[in-house]
Each structure stands twice: as C-alpha cells, then as structure tokens.
C-alpha cells in the first residue's frame, strides 16, 4: 500500500517533534487543536441541537401565545410579560427570565454532567487518555466546551426571543426599569449583556457538573445530580430561614440581571455574580482535577 505516504507523514511527525518550536508553543497549539475538535464534536451532536432547539421554543411559545391570546394583564406572569404587545423586544428578556430557573440549568446539566462520564460510558475516555490527551488538559478542554455551550444556550434564548418579538409585535424604544427610555440599538446591546450575565451565572454550575461527571461512568447520574443541585440551591435561596447562606448559593444572583436594564447601567450585581461564580469554578475545578488525576480509568 502507499508506504510513501506513510513514510512522508512519519518524517513530518518526527520533524515536528524535534523542530525548533518550543514545547510550550507546541502544547498550546495542541490544546487549541483538541478544543477545536471538542467543540466540533459537541456541535455535531444532534443532542446539542435538540437542547438548543428546546430553548429556542421558549420565546416562540411566549410570543405565539401572547399574539394569539392578547396582552397579559398588568403585573401578572413573569416580569415584562405585560409589555410584550407594546414592544416585541421584551420577548427575549421575558424568555430568559422564564428559562433561567429550570430550562437553562437542565441543558447545562446535560452537557456538563456528560463531559467525562459520557466519554467513560462510551469507552472513549481511555482512548483520549492514551492518545495522550493529558488528564488536566482534557478537563480544561471539557470545561471550556461546556462554557461555550452556556453562552450558546443564553444567546439562543435572547436572540430567538428578539427575532420572534420583531416578527410578531411592534418594535420601538424601550422604557427601562429606571424610567429612562433608550433606542432599539441600545436595548439590543443590553440584551447581549444579559446573555453574557446569564452565561457567567451558569459557569459555577458547569464546574459542579464537571466534577460530578468525574465521579461516575453513568452520564445520566451526573446530569440529574447537577440539575437537582441547581433546583435545591434555588429552593434554599427562597427560604428566609437560610438567609445567611443565600449570598453563597450559586443560583443566588441568577435573576439579578435587572440592573442591566437601568440607566446608567449598574454593574455591581454583574461583578458580585462573577466573583461568586469564579469561586465555584475554582473550588469545583480543583475537586474535579483532584479526583480525575488519580482516578483509575476502568471503563
């Protein structure tokens, strides 16, 4: 067979290994390559698109329901719901408020909980490790991919909501919570900021999911546990008796993006949320690394 091709690629391989390229540079390139491959795998998967599709359905349902049934009575239903008939731009914001407590965490639970456990259940974990992907490198790549999915999920809801609102309802300048009115362009930028806020909100949960994913070879277990933790955290956040605990719950600031709808924008809650999420990422990232680097891979 084509032994020439073989010989050619071999010498290329050897050449690269011994080339003047410094080892860290080579490894950084390799890590990007692995991340690219991981993202490609994630977004080639039908399940990923099914999850994003389910999220996209939320603004569609809200938009169509209001279009068909007419405006919601003022002050009832999720925030901004009563404003949609006046201004379609509120569909996206309403949808993200509806999606944040349950639908978003469910999809993140699926992706983060599957990160390592899914590979283990397919048996591909052992082949990634003997490639060798490197255990810490694999965890980092898996986490970054989960974070990219968080952004994709938040953007899906906000962007789809804006499109639905644009199609079904009149569009106009937006009256903010502080009473000021901003133009459509300014409002769209704020919606993107909300998507960023929600993405950051989900990073801590993704780290928890990644850690749980290193504990098992049954992906469904890790997915369910991750989603259940999110709901449990929200329940605790709703109990006044546990008020001392509230600022430490990773769901505590999840709906705090209202500050982005003020003029001027108040970034305090964004920063507090980011700090809390960073703490969760550090703690659960460390736990995941600690667990994974010593784990016997028997699957």
């Amino acid at each position, binding site marked *: 067979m084509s032994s020439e091709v*073989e010989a050619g690629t071999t010498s290329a391989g050897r050449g690269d290994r011994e080339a003047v390229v410094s080892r860290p540079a080579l490894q950084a390139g390799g890590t990007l390559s*692995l991340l690219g491959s991981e993202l490609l795998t994630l977004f080639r998967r039908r399940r990923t698109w099914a999850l994003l599709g389910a999220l996209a359905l939320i603004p569609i349902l809200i938009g169509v329901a209001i279009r068909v049934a007419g405006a919601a009575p003022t002050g009832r239903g999720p925030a901004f719901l009563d404003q949609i008939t006046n201004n379609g731009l509120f569909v996206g914001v309403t949808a993200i408020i509806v999606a944040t407590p349950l639908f978003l965490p469910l999809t993140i639970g699926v992706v983060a909980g599957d990160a390592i456990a899914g590979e283990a259940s397919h048996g591909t974990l052992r082949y990634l490790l003997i490639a060798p*992907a490197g255990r810490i490198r694999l965890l980092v790549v898996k986490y970054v991919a989960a974070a990219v999915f968080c952004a994709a999920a938040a953007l899906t809801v906000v962007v789809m909501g804006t499109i639905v609102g644009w199609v079904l309802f009149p569009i106009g300048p937006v009256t903010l919570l502080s009473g000021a009115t901003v133009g459509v362009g300014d409002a769209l930028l704020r919606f993107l900021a909300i998507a960023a806020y929600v993405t950051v909100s989900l990073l801590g949960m993704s780290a928890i999911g990644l850690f749980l994913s290193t504990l098992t070879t049954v992906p469904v277990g890790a997915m369910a546990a991750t989603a259940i933790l999110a709901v449990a955290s929200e329940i605790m956040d709703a109990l006044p008796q546990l008020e001392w605990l509230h600022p430490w719950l990773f769901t505590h600031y999840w709906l705090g993006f209202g500050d982005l709808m003020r003029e001027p924008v108040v970034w305090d809650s964004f920063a507090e949320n980011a700090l809390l999420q960073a703490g969760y990422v550090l703690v659960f990232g460390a736990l995941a690394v600690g667990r994974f680097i010593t784990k016997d891979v028997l699957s």
Partner: protein
Amino acid sequence: MPDLAIETHGLTKRFRSQLAVDDLDLAVPPGAVYGFLGPNGSGKTTTIRMLLGLVAATAGDARVLGADMPRHVDSVLPRVGALVEGPAFSPYLSGEANLRRFDAADREAPRRTRAARVVEALDRVGLSHAARKKVHAYSLGMKQRLGIANALLMRRELLVLDEPTNGLDPQGTREVRALIRSFAEDGTTVFVSSHLLAEVEQVCTHVGVMSAGRLVAQGTLDEFRAEGETRVLVRTPDAARARRVMAGLGLDVDEEAAGGIRPVTIPATDAAGNAAGDAVVARLGTRPPESVVAALVDAGVRVRGFETLHANLEQRFVELTGEGFDVVQ
C-alpha cells in the same frame, strides 16, 4: 543493549479485596512480537491499563520504551499505539471524525498531516468505503478495524493490541496477522494479548502466560514449546508387548493408553476402517523417536502407526492455567 520495550518489576494491582495482578515481572524485548496469554479474568487487561497509565499500580514499577510509567505518559504514549479492551468510539460521529478526534488529542500529532494520516490508516484496515458512515452503523468487525486504524495514526515504536482479532471474520483475522507481521518487519514491538492460541502461535516470537494475576511462564516461543513434553504414540495390536519394550527402554509409559491425549485421533483412525489396534503413549524424554521404532520392530511388535506428539501452545497453556471452566480465578 537497548532498553526493553516493556519492563515491569513486582507490578501489582489490588482492587479492594481482589488481587487482579500479582507481582508481575514482564520483559518484552524491543522488536519482539510478544503474545500475552491468559484465560479471561487472569489480569491481562488490568496489566495493559497499568502499562498505559490508565490505572495506577498498587505496588511495583513499569517502564515502557525506557521511561517510567505513569510518570512519563505524556512523552511515552505518543510513541505507543493501543487497542485496549475492545474498540470504543463516539457512535454519533463518522469513523473518520472519530479518528480525527483521537488524533487531535495527541499533542505530538501534527495537524497539517491529520487528514492524510486518517485516510491512510483507514485504507490500511480496509475501511475507506465506510469512512463517512456513523460508527453506530458499523459492525463489530468494522469497529475492531477502526480501533486498529486508531493505533496506526502515527508511526509507533510499540503497539499494544488487546484481543485484536475479536469479532473479525477469518479474512479480517488473516489481515490482522499480516499487519502484525508487517509491523514486526518494520522493527515495531508488538504486545498482543489474546486467548486465541493458534493465533498467537502463528505470529509471536515471545510468549507470556498469565494465570490468576500471576505470570506463570515467559520466554521465546521456542523455549516455551521446548518446555512441554514430547510424547510418542504407537498404534499396534500388540499393546502389552509394546508397553513392555518401551518401559524397557526407560520411557515413561502412560497407564491409561492415550487417555486424555488427543482422543480425537483414535476414533478418526477407527473410522478409516483400519483395525489399527490400541494406542500406546509414552513420554519420550531425550531419546530420538526412531530408536523407539527400531526397538519395537526388533521385539516383533507389529507397528501400524507411530507419531511424535509435540506439546503445542494449547497443551502448554492448559498445563499452566488449568482445565475447562475450573481455571483458577
């Protein structure tokens, strides 16, 4: 003297109460095709997992291509291609996409040549036609081939193949054998675990046998065979006299004539309608077999058949690891 390709000392793995691998001293010389044998559950796969850094040893040490494992996994594993406990792929990706994914995980595999190397590897195992098919549509044999292709993505110094012919049809088995031979010719060390003894006997230069977590024998295939006993089988109507003569020569004659030794040959002879008489079996020792025939004929024994029975790998294997389903667990 170059380093051994694989070398372990006192390698031990304990899972809770069970001792999976016990005090293993493997020595695989470079360039060898090493057949790693053992019944199911004898610790072969656990050993392979330790060699590849997937599982941490409880005690002892392992060196692969001259470097300590698992400390040097990052520098050693790019030079090792492996098939561990069956192939495994993401079912929702094509065969080609799966290979690219594993190749991307190897940080020493150049991205530039990735596509070409994947095509080449698929071609080597005869899967070019199914490259774009999703793996969930692959048959077991196709997955097995894809697993072998994955081990071939880069030029390797060591190939570790755990049951490489599992699920393959006879043609596929022959191809794998040919592939193993071609690697050996290139100087690649091949470490192949199997319970298909005939398979191993055909391609291996060295053999190691595991039983209940211990390495019970290790050496070149020839040494291994030589340790087994050669027997002679005489077919004659004068069985009693033949026994006396052979005993007189100092041969150790089996009491139960031919009992347990290749019982299949006896009905086969009978079926030929040839009244060959009884079969007498004796351990030959170091005596040349023709001298036995001469002595028998001198003594007037009617010799109708004479065979020397070399211990084949299967007999040695059974001698070392036990019979039937009662193998040591």
